[in-house]
């Protein structure tokens, strides 16, 4: 795993450095023009968040039902990565919305549900930090709850009338604008790599913390 980290980090850094160039060369969307280019990182960040949420959901389930300490650590790491990507997703969406819709925020179904998802995972982290002994199980339950909320966030634009574009925009982008589709895929791949690297780093921190706890216990004995 450690051997893979450095090459993966170098590849991600290279692709990330190249991404602004690809975005600048991507075709302009006819109605929103320049501000639409926020889309490439905005969409990619929500994809990375989806992976982190899924990892947290699965890990939390394994921890709750099997008691695996490794899964607990992975769930914690994934929840933190989720909050980071969620924060960028909400801020970038707000910046885009200010220009495209004329408002910083709109309490419509998609935006409100995405905000609630972010709050659930912030809650997860607060429970882990201040919940005291046994907070791992409560946090794991929140991880499952947050994971179960994610599909509703995704489908909210199709089920309810919202100001946000529908999911069909992305599914048809390959046919309507291959130039945009290629850049969206590239940015998504970069953000997925980033998500994996951040998870690996956070897991290392949690593994070291677990080792430190064992050392403290051994020192007390």
């Amino acid at each position, binding site marked *: 795993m450690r051997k893979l980290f450095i090459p993966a980090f170098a590849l991600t850094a290279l692709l990330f450095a190249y991404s*602004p160039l690809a975005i600048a060369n991507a075709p302009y969307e006819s109605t929103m023009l320049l501000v639409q280019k*926020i889309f490439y*990182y*905005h969409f990619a960040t929500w994809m990375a968040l989806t992976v982190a949420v899924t990892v947290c959901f699965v890990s939390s389930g394994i921890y709750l039902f099997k008691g695996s300490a490794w899964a607990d650590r992975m769930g914690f790491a994934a929840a933190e990565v989720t909050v980071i990507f969620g924060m*960028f997703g909400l*801020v970038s969406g707000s910046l885009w919305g200010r220009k495209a819709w004329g408002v910083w925020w709109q309490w419509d179904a998609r935006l409100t549900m995405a905000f609630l998802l972010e709050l659930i995972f912030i809650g997860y982290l607060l429970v882990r930090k201040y919940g005291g002994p046994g907070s791992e199980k409560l946090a794991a339950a929140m991880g499952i709850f947050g994971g179960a909320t994610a599909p509703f966030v995704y489908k909210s634009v199709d089920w309810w009338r919202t100001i946000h574009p529908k999911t069909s925009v992305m599914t048809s982008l390959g046919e309507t604008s291959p130039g945009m589709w290629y850049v969206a895929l590239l940015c998504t791949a970069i953000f997925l790599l980033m998500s994996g690297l951040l998870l690996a780093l956070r897991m290392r*921190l949690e593994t070291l913390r677990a080792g*430190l706890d064992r050392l403290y216990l051994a020192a007390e004995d």
Partner: protein
Amino acid sequence: MLRRLLTAVLSLLLIAVPVLAQQPPTSPDGFVPVDTLPPSEQLAAGPFLVGAYVFFLLLMMFYLWTIWQRLGKVESEMRELERRALKGQGR
């Protein structure tokens, strides 16, 4: 009578002039193209785009810095514990 009527019409005209002068120009379909708006009514996209990308960079750098700080703290605590354990064995 005629004088009163003329005064009333003149008064109405005098009131109507400023009211009509303040009416916004009407558009045939209720919408105007964004590029025809005065500059004060238009928002430049550049700051929003740059703002989003700079925010992402800063967020990632800050997050990596916090992980690095926490890793350093845990590793130094581990070293301290190991040093104390070795000292204890030496006694």
